[in-house]
Structures are given as C-alpha cells and as structure tokens.
C-alpha cells in the first residue's frame, strides 16, 4: 500500500507520467521534461509527504497514549499555532518570501511554544500531567491565534503569502525541506518506537502504572518531547495538516489491537499512506490547479471519521 502511494505520488499530477516512465526516470535518466518533473519536483514532494504523514501518525498515537484521551492530536499543545505565528512574523517583519525558507521559522516557533507550554504545565504542583499540559497548550494556542490574526488584519501582503502556507501543503517543497526536518522527525520517531512498552503500562491507569514501577511523570515528559519533535517537524514542513494525527491512531488501533508496540508502527505507515494519497487526490481533483493536502485530508477525512465513530464498536482507550 505504501509502495503504491509512493508510485502514485510520483506519477500523478497536473502532468501525468506513466508508471514505466517513472521507473525509467531513476534507472535511465534522459533529461526529458517528464523525468525532470519526477526527479526534481515529485521526489522531494513525496519525501516530504512520507515524513509528514509518518510524523503526524506517530505524534497522534503518542499523545493519545500519554493522555489516554481519544481526541488528543497534534494541534493540542499549541504547536501549530506557534509555527503559524512564527511564519507570519517571518513574512511580515523579516520579509522572508519562499515556502522552504518558512521551514526554519516554523520549527523555531513550534519549539519555543513547546518549551513555554511545558514551563507553564510544569509549574503546577503535580507536574506536567496530560491535562495540565493540554490546558496550557490550549491557552497558548488561543493567544497565538489571536496575535496571528492581529498581524494579518493590518498587513494584507502577509495575509496573501500566509494563506498558502496555512492550508497545509507539501507541494513546492524542494529537497532542503525534507533535509531540514528529517533529523527532527527521525529523533521523534525513535522516541515513539521506544515508548510503546511504557505506553502499554500507562494505558492501565496512573496508579497501576506507578505500582508497576513506572515513573509516570518521566514517561509523559519523554513522550511529550517525542510528540513535540514529530508535530513540530510536520508543521514546519507542510503547514498545519489537520485530521491525520487524530484519525490515524484510531484506525491503527482497530487494525493492530491495544498494544502500543504495534499501534505506533501502524500509525507511522498509515499516516504516510494517508498523507500521500490525500496529496495525490488534491492534485487530481481541481486539475490543472492543486488543492492543499491539508484541505483534502479534512474533506475526505471528516466523512470517514464520522463513519468511524458511528461504528457499533469504536475502540475506547
């Protein structure tokens, strides 16, 4: 399924390239337009799509596991809002004008907000437990969204640039974007894969986890760090892409059962597949123009999720 999405992502677009030609672009590059499109445009785009999808899937699984909250998703810690605000400032104040250049700013914004949210959440008596963190994140997000809107209201030029970023897209990204976020997302994935065992214990409730000898606070902190790396890397590369981080872990749970050592890898794969598929759909839907992947995931995803929650048996956490 993953291989097929990759191939489709390389082949389909405003200019379609036959599958055979796609393969020849790698085995026997001849400099033709089709080969150039595949190698120079579609490959980086697909790389970014894979990374972002995998990161969002894993991020959702981590946060749902750490908070035992079925609605936890990459938006909740204010990561997206932080990245958005940083990008707006970059456009408005520093006159930065290209999508790849936003990546660094978005990453920095996400990181600063994550640290602030942790500091805020950690000052409470019980330490950064799930609820405190989520509340701190929501407050931070509300504040940053207000600030972002304030800047945009007075600055039409920035709004014009920003609206392309905010919908979430993996088009127009060159190889440098994937390279910038790769170490961040890779580190996040390492934490995600290592956390499965501890998330299983945490799923039995804080008291049982603690009596099994787990440092519940430390586990949550480590998992949240992984989450920040993944969600931050994803938003930096593609802008805010809703829904993937929320829905993918639920599907993974249906397919893989309640074991986080399986839910995490399933979420990684499904996230990558879903994001690439949504991106391909976005290229086809309004041809020859394109629709941002962030819009497609919501358009396709919302009805699917309605179906999912209406199933007779939705898997509870």
């Amino acid at each position, binding site marked *: 399924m993953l291989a097929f999405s990759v191939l489709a992502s390389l082949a389909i677009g405003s200019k379609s390239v036959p599958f055979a030609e796609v393969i020849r672009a790698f085995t026997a590059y001849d400099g033709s337009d089709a080969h150039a499109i595949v190698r120079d445009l579609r490959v980086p785009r697909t790389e970014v799509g894979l990374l972002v999808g995998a990161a969002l899937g894993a991020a959702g699984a981590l946060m749902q596991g750490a908070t035992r909250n079925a609605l936890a998703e990459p938006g909740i810690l204010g990561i997206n809002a932080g990245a958005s605000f940083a990008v707006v400032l970059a456009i408005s104040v520093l006159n930065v004008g290209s999508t790849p250049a936003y990546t660094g700013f978005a990453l920095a914004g996400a990181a600063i907000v994550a640290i602030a949210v942790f500091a805020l959440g950690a000052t409470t008596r019980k330490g950064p437990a799930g609820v405190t963190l989520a509340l701190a994140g929501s407050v931070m997000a509300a504040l940053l969204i207000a600030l972002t809107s304030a800047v945009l209201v007075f600055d039409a030029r920035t709004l014009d640039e920003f609206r392309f970023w905010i919908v979430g897209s993996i088009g127009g990204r060159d190889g440098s974007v994937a390279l910038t976020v790769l170490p961040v997302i890779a580190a996040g994935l390492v934490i995600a894969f290592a956390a499965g*065992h501890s998330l299983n*214990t945490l799923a039995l*409730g804080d008291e*049982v986890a603690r*009596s*099994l*000898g787990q440092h519940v606070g430390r586990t949550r902190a480590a998992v949240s760090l992984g989450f920040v790396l993944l969600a931050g890397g994803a938003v930096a590369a593609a802008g805010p892409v809703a829904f993937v981080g929320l829905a993918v872990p639920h599907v993974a749970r249906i397919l893989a059962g*309640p074991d986080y050592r399986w839910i995490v890898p399933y979420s990684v794969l499904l996230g990558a597949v879903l994001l690439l598929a949504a991106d391909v759909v976005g290229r086809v839907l309004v041809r020859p123009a394109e629709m941002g992947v962030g819009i497609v995931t919501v358009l396709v995803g919302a009805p699917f999720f309605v179906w999912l929650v209406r199933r007779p048996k939705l*898997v509870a956490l």
Partner: protein
Amino acid sequence: MSSLEARDLRVGYGGPDVVAGLDLVIRPEQITAIVGANGCGKSTLLRALARLITPTGGSVLLDGQEIRTLSSKAVAKRLGLLPQSPTAPENLTVEDLVARGRYPHQGLFRQWSPTDEQAVEEALAATATTDLRARPLDELSGGQRQRAWIAMALAQQTELLLLDEPTTYLDLAHQIDVLDLLDGLVAERGRTVVMVLHDINQACRYADQLVAVRDGRVHAAGAPGEIVDDRFIGDVFGLEARVVEDPVTGTPLCLPIAQRRSTRCAS
C-alpha cells in the same frame, strides 16, 4: 520475606492530615484487612504504603528501608497494588493484561523472557483464568475481570499484595470467590495480603489481622475475635450494633441495629 511497616505516618492533601500519625506493622504471610468509615483515611493509608503518595511526615519502611529512598522498580518487585476500579483499554485480552504485570522485571534491553512466560502461566493458573486467556477483558463478568486483574498483580511476583476494596461492584458469590482466591495465595503461596474492605463481616472472616482506622489513626488492631465487639462497631463506624458469633466460621458477626426498624420490631 518482605516486611512492611508505617511509623508515625502522616499524609495530607494540602488541608488537615488525612492520615495523622499512624503506626502499623504488617504481618508477613497473613491477611491484613483495613476497615473504617468512609473518609477515615484507609485508602490513603494503602496508597502511602504502596508509595503512590508521598507522606507529609513519618515513614513507610519496606524491609526496614525507607520506601522513598528505593527506586520505583525495586519497590515494584516487592510490592504490588491493585486500585479500586482499574481501567484497561478495550479489546485487551486477559493474557496481554497479565503480561503487562511483568513490567518491573523488564527494561529497554531486557525484553520478554522464558521467566516472564512462566510467571504469566503461574498467575493465570493461580487465578483460574487460564481458560479465559484469549478473551478480551471487557467481555468478562465482573468476577472474572477482577481475577484477571489479580493475575496481573501476581505476575508481578511480589511477596506483598495490596488491594483497595477488591470486592467492590461484585455480587456476593463473586465476592467470596475473590476472597477465597486471596486466602489461598496466603495459605499456599506464602504471599502477604493487605486489603481495604468495606464489609466488616467479610473482614472478620478472612483477616488474620484486622486494622480499624479512625480519624487517620489506628483505633484498634489485632485478631478480629479479640477486638470486634458492640463498642468497637460504635467507635469505628458510629453505628449501634450487636456482635454475635458467626455460626459458620465462629468469627465475629456484626448485626446493625437500624433505628426505625428495631424500634418498630421491639414495640
């Protein structure tokens, strides 16, 4: 053999101390039942004994060592706790739940081993849940589910087992089922059981040592037959009652005197 004791233990949640200078020695290879009125501090006491909450004063000693200075995993290898109504993710099978009890014996580099496998098998066998191993927890009856949770705590292989009201929400037959299971663990496997119980009559039947908590202190402790009488029930539960001999076991049996009914019957 693991020993557990509390010395001048004080626990509070910011307000007045809920456990207020309590001394208690848990006897090894026996059942200790903690009883008391609602809000007397018995659940808090159990949590403090299990290191789930930090005392504001005094100390809990596990094998003579201050429990706060021990690592979480070191404690978890000697002492297991089952909270009142534990929650599990949906579709979790009995076997997977029990396997998660092996957590303190595993590490990042020490994964599943034959020892773990054997511990799980033993825990399933001891709780008669071997036949239920592949069933999801949410499909079981309340009594079966409680046995599965006890199996998880057993797989932890701790000498000390602390349980917070293990019979809550179970019907009478399943209550006896669970208590008999715990009794067997002590008699046949040499475990030490400490549990909070609501039902004073069941506590009298199953406990070797009864600990009555009142206002955050131990009001009385000892064999049920030696400490439970009419006055004891009045002091601990604030209830007028007659204590007679249990015709089945010979232990104390508490018969509450409800004000309205008894007056009407008497007149």
